Each structure stands twice: as structure tokens, then as C-alpha cells.
């Protein structure tokens, strides 16, 4: 992206999203330390979101609930209501789409917008940022923080700088100067390990990193090093909505408490298979490959995949395959995370000798989809899943039309696009600010 035609990019981030929704819906909670997570202060599990009042006590997301309970004994602990947050998130994304079609949701509570082409209608980045804040307040009664910059990288850092209810504008040409004093860990892709390695070179701020000669970075960190130097100067050509069309549809779940209970594991796989199948049908594609991901207590992660004889968008074959793949791997192991992914979307269609699918089953599935669309994800479910608390997966772009997601909806349609290893792999751990883009 040349400096001659700078883009205007906004990063929008809902403030303490889960906690804010609870405080909005229950006025008695306002002004109080609200901690949304997997249970009470004596339970295992972690904090998903803490309200700003709770953060004053040092409580933050991903902190064990017991630690939060010790820090903030008067905190109000609430369970995660994934379906509710998902619904609010959709409303928010819908507001964002009034300003530009180029909206790239990156998690349930944040999104990038490219408003370059919208300036003629709504004014400059700062003015658009203010209007979005107003409209979201009036639509869902929540506050957001907005970063305005010429790149996604800088916009995201900017939105994080003055939370809650912030608006930070980084003028074109000032990106490097804006970043320079910030601590190195704020830069995308710089985790604890990398920060440690950079400290050997005396790098503490992003400016320190920008000052390092590029060849040194390349020598030390390889290809990653060159990109690192560019990012430190605020350069990031990544386009908004530049995500290639979905190559796969997946759902992952991290257990609050690691489990080896076969029934819990089976039900989780069933719930995820059901979700994946529903999203395949919503997208009008069938998948020919099923992958399961299993992470155990020791963080050993394995994936197993199988190509189906016949592409499908139904729960049963996905579940059967997932269970088949997972069963030998989970026996006697404590499981931390499970994932089910469907890929090979609409790549092919195996013609059949005899029509096999029972048309009555198809009609039943379509009727259930209809109920879900009208009355919400939990409105109808399998008896076996009643009472199981699998959070809904984060949908990257639930509101955009299928064509915009590169998925044709006609028969034999497919998700075309450039080879890419990105996909709509969703993590439903729901730790606020937990979905870092690296």
C-alpha cells in the first residue's frame, strides 16, 4: 500500500464485552466487579471477561477463577452465555456493515473495517469512528474502543490504547512515531519468547526494534525477522476482509476442566459435528474431509483426518467419522481440547449408483435449520445434547452473504480461491482479547 493513497482502517473492539452485556441486562450489576467465566470463585476454569470494576482488583481474562476469587472476594461470578453474546455480536457486526462492506470480524467482539471508500459519505476516519460509537451505543447500549490508522496493525494497537470507550487516531505518516515508545509486546506476533530474544539486542520498545538493521533481524529470525522489522515501522499491507474464502469450517472447544469421560467427549464431538454440519448447510457446501484435533493435558496435540466416500453436510456422517478418528486417541487420556473440522468444501461430487439419502431425513434437517434460524441456536437440538453447555462457535462472518464469502450457492458450487492455509478455525475458549492475530 503506497503512502500516496493511504487507506483508512478502523479497529473496533467491544469493551469488556461479556461483562458489559451482563451489566447492560442487569442494572443491579452496574458499577460492580463482574467476572464472567466457567463458574464460581472456587471452581476450576478461567476468567473469560472481567468488568473494568473487577480489573481494578487485578482480575484479567484467562486468570484462574480461584485467583480471581482471592483478588476480588466481592466479585460477582457469572457463567458464560455464549448464545447471548453471539446474538449481540451479530447486531454489532450489522451496525458496522452500515459504514462499509469491508468488515472483517476477527473474533466475537472485534473487527476491522476498511472505510477508505466510505469517507466521501461519512467523513474522515475520526468522524466515522465517532458515528460508529454512537450507533453501537444506541443499537445495543454498549461501548467500544476504536483505533483509526492506515493499517490493520496500527489500528489494532491504537484501539487498545485508551480503553474503555476510547478513540485513538493515528494520522498517516505518523505510524512509526506512534509505535516507537510502545512496549515491544504490543506488536503482533511478539510473544513472551520473542520479546525475551529481542531483549538480547536491547529491544524494549517497538521503536528499538524499528531501529535494528534489517539484515540482523533476517540473520537472527529468518523470514519472520524481515516482516517483524516492517511491522515495527507500522507497515502492514494486509487488506481488510483479505481472508480468503473459507477452505474449511471447524469448531474447537477447550474444556473448563480437562476430561477423560468418554460420554463428555462423545457429546462434545456430537455437538461440534452438529454445529459444523449446520454451518456447511448454511453455506450451501458439502465437505469431503473430516479432521479431528485432540490436545491432551500435556498440550500434546494431534490431528487425524479422513476423506469421506461421499461429501456431506449432515451431522451423522461427520460425527461418526470424528468419533471413529478420535476414539483410539482419547482412550485413557485426559483431554484439554477437541476440534472437528470439515474441509474439501464442494471440491467434488461423487456420483452415486442408487440414490441413497433418505429425502425425509433431508426434509427433517431443513425444518430444524429453519427453527434455528428463526428462534436461535438452542431452539432445537438433539436429545443427547440437551443440557450440554458447548458454546456456539465464533462465526467469522455470519452476516455477509455467501457470495461475499466466495462460496457459490448453486448446486455443485464450491469455495474457490487461492491456495491458503487459513481457514475459519474457531476457538470457543472465549477468553476476551484472547484471539490474537499473529
Amino acid at each position, binding site marked *: 500500500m503506497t503512502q500516496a493513497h493511504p487507506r483508512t482502517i478502523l479497529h473496533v473492539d467491544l469493551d469488556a464485552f461479556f461483562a458489559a452485556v451482563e451489566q447492560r441486562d442487569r442494572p443491579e450489576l452496574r458499577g460492580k466487579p463482574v467476572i464472567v467465566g466457567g463458574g464460581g470463585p472456587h471452581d476450576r476454569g478461567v476468567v473469560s471477561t472481567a468488568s473494568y470494576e473487577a480489573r481494578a482488583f487485578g482480575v484479567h481474562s484467562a486468570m484462574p477463577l480461584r485467583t480471581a476469587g482471592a483478588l476480588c472476594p466481592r466479585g460477582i461470578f457469572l457463567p458464560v452465555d455464549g448464545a447471548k453474546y453471539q446474538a449481540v455480536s451479530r447486531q454489532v457486526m450489522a451496525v458496522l456493515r452500515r459504514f462499509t462492506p469491508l468488515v472483517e470480524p476477527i473474533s466475537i467482539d472485534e473487527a476491522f473495517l476498511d472505510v477508505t471508500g466510505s469517507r466521501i459519505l461519512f467523513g474522515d476516519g475520526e468522524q466515522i469512528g465517532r458515528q460508529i460509537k454512537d450507533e453501537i451505543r444506541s443499537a445495543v447500549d454498549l461501548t467500544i474502543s476504536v483505533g483509526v490508522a492506515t493499517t490493520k496493525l496500527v489500528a489494532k494497537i491504537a484501539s487498545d490504547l485508551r480503553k474503555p470507550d476510547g478513540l485513538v487516531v493515528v494520522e498517516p505518516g505518523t505510524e512509526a512515531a506512534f509505535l516507537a515508545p510502545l512496549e515491544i509486546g504490543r506488536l503482533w506476533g511478539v510473544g513472551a519468547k520473542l520479546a525475551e530474544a529481542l531483549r538480547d539486542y536491547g529491544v524494549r520498545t517497538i521503536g528499538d526494534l524499528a531501529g535494528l538493521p534489517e539484515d540482523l533481524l533476517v540473520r537472527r529470525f529468518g523470514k519472520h525477522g524481515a516482516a517483524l522489522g516492517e511491522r515495527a515501522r507500522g507497515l502492514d499491507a494486509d487488506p481488510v476482509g483479505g481472508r480468503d474464502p473459507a477452505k474449511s469450517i471447524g469448531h474447537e472447544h477447550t474444556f473448563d476442566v480437562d476430561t477423560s469421560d468418554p460420554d463428555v467427549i462423545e457429546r462434545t464431538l456430537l455437538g461440534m459435528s452438529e454445529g459444523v454440519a449446520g454451518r456447511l448447510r448454511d453455506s450451501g457446501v458439502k465437505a*469431503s*474431509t473430516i479432521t479431528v484435533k485432540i490436545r491432551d493435558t500435556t498440550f500434546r496435540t494431534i490431528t487425524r483426518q479422513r*476423506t469421506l*466416500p*461421499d461429501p456431506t453436510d449432515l451431522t451423522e*456422517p461427520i460425527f*461418526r467419522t470424528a468419533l471413529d478418528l478420535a476414539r483410539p486417541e482419547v482412550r485413557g487420556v485426559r483431554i484439554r481440547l477437541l476440534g472437528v473440522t470439515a474441509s*474439501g468444501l*464442494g*471440491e*467434488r*461430487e*461423487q*456420483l*452415486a*449408483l*442408487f440414490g*441413497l439419502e433418505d429425502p425425509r431425513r433431508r426434509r427433517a434437517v431443513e425444518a430444524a435449520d429453519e427453527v434455528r434460524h428463526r428462534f436461535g441456536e438452542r431452539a432445537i437440538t438433539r436429545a443427547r445434547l440437551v443440557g450440554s453447555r458447548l458454546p456456539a462457535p465464533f462465526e467469522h462472518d455470519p452476516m455477509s452473504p455467501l457470495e461475499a464469502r466466495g462460496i457459490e450457492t448453486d448446486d*455443485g458450487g*464450491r469455495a*474457490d480461491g487461492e*491456495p491458503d492455509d487459513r481457514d475459519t478455525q474457531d476457538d470457543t475458549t472465549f477468553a476476551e482479547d484472547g484471539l490474537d492475530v499473529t
Partner: protein
Amino acid sequence: MKLSVMQENLARGLSVVSRAVSNRSLPVLTNVLLKTEDAGLKLTATNLEIGITYWVPGKIESDGATSVPARLLTDLVNSLPGGEPIILELGDGETLHIRAGQFESNIKGIPAEDFPTVQTAGERPITRVEQKILRQALDETAFAAASDEARPILTGVLARFEGDQLTLAAADNYRIAVKRITVLDPVEETSVVVPARALHELARILADTDEPVSIVLAHSRNQLLFHVEGVDLVTRLIDGQYPNYQSVLPASHATRAILDREELLRAVRPAALIAHESANIVKLGVGLDGDPGITVSANAEVGDHVGRVEAAVEGDGTTIAFNARFLADVLTNVDAAQFALELNGPLSPGVFKPVGDDRYVHVVMPLRTTS
């Protein structure tokens, strides 16, 4: 019960019947039944779908029966020295004593009465078939049966007897294999659907010999029994109506290629390696632009591959895409030097027929691809 048998004979018998041992948790089904009968030792195992009975020649001192864990007994007998007799004796508390030379073991059993009844050949066979002919027919058909239970009838092989002909048909909805063989005794028209798993086991038991295998249909018509010298295999039958496969066998073709089976198989194998990365799609180009040959290609993110084999092509040139596994299956399992491949364009079934043998036909449905 007390008897002695030769180690080799007992080991062989156990290896045959253990194919029918259940891997389910019901303990008695993981056992093998030992029973003295007709001056020998009868071994029986069953998983309730199939049962296998094997007669081991031996010297009986006293009659009796018991059942012991099949896996343990099999492993134990295999570890004992060959060329020596093994003495089996049932002791107190349903314990089987096993003595061989300097070795002595005891295995705790479950009373024989608890073991399910497994049919053995008693009724008159409906017909007989030369073992090697039936074995080849099974090899060429049973692999095409469905392995998943989505439609149980397709996990079976249709066996249709009529006069001196037996027609076997197996399909999994994407392909079908049909083979006709001659039986030794004429039969009135009878159709049964036999689990393909049972026929895979039968194929292992059948020898490469002209000696016949007898086929017995139980009076209740819910079991089929195969008998060869010293071994019985009984299988349950699958209920239901087998789909009308004849209606899907193409009657004509627009393209016909005569090809060498092994050559095409050699061309499919490398393509299948690439295809493995992309939904297993292998494309055939048959007689394109007047080329007297078949190109075999695959395309995936990881790379691509193209190969070519000579073929005598008549009719229109065409392309067609198949699941690589289905191609490899028919080319591997069917005993023919040359195949005729008959096609009707990219979206119609492909038909494989051994050249000079009108008793076998294999139909594979193509893949519709987007490119």
C-alpha cells in the same frame, strides 16, 4: 475331557477359527469352544454374525467340552514346540490343563453350555462349487461392498442362484462388481444377501483346488453355511431387498479402450499418491485428440502428476474422473490380463470388463469435478 493333538494341527485350527472370535466385551464370545466329537477335537468360535468350526484330528481318551479365551490359547499353542503332541485335560473348576513336553499350563475356562450354539453342516447342501472358482469370484466382488453401515443391505453381497449359475453382486453405491460362476448341482432360483465380511473370511478358508465347497441354506433361510473338509463357516444373512443393480449397468457406450490391466495399475499408483491430497481424484483422458492411449493425471496443492499408457481406443475421446481407490481396487482385485474400459462421457458410469470374459463386469461412478 482328555485328549492329545499335534501342536501343528491345533495351531492351524485355532488360527482358522480365531477369525470369528468377537472383539466385543461379552467374555464367552472372546472364547473358543473345545469339544470332543467324532474321534477328534472340534474348535468353534463365533461373533454372532459368523461362526467357524474346525475339526482337529486327535486321540480322545475321554469326551467333554469347555471354552477358554481364544487369543490366549492361540498365542500359547503357537509358542509351544512343534512336532509334539499337546495333551488337553479339563480339570476341576473349569480349568484346562495343557501339557506339552516339559511345559504345563492351566487356563480358566467358561462352561461349554454358556457358549452360543453354532450351526454345523447337517442339512443337505443346496449346491456345491469348486473352491478355487468361488474363491476367485469372491476376490473379484466382495471388496466392492459397502464398509459403512449407512445402508446395511449394501454391506452384503447378493448371491443369486438359478439353475447351474450363481451370480454374485456387490455394490457400495459408487461402484458395483458382478460375477457369474457355474455351480455343480442345479438349484431352483434363490437369492440371499451374505455379509461381505463373512465372505472375506470364507475366501481365506477356501483352497486353490477343484475340490468343492458345499453350500447349505438353513431351513429358516436366515443362515448360510459353507462346508469344506474339516471346516464349516456359518453366517447370518442380511434381511431386505437388494437394490435393482441391473438397471444401472450401462447398455451401450460411446468410447471403448482396450488396455493392459497391470500397466494401468502402474499408472494409477503414482497419481493416487498426489490425489490422496485432494479428495482422491484421478482423471483419465481416453483417446483425446486421437491419441491411442490413456492419460492418468492428478492435481493437488502439493503437486501434480501425469502418466500415460497405451490403449486401443474406439469411439469418441473423453475425460473422466474417478476416486483413485476405486480404480486401484478393480485393477488390483480382478484377475485379467486386459480390460475393456467403456465410457459414455465424463458424467456417466465407467465400465470395466475383462477382455474375453463376459462373466464379470465392474461399474464405477465418476466424480464430478469443478475444473
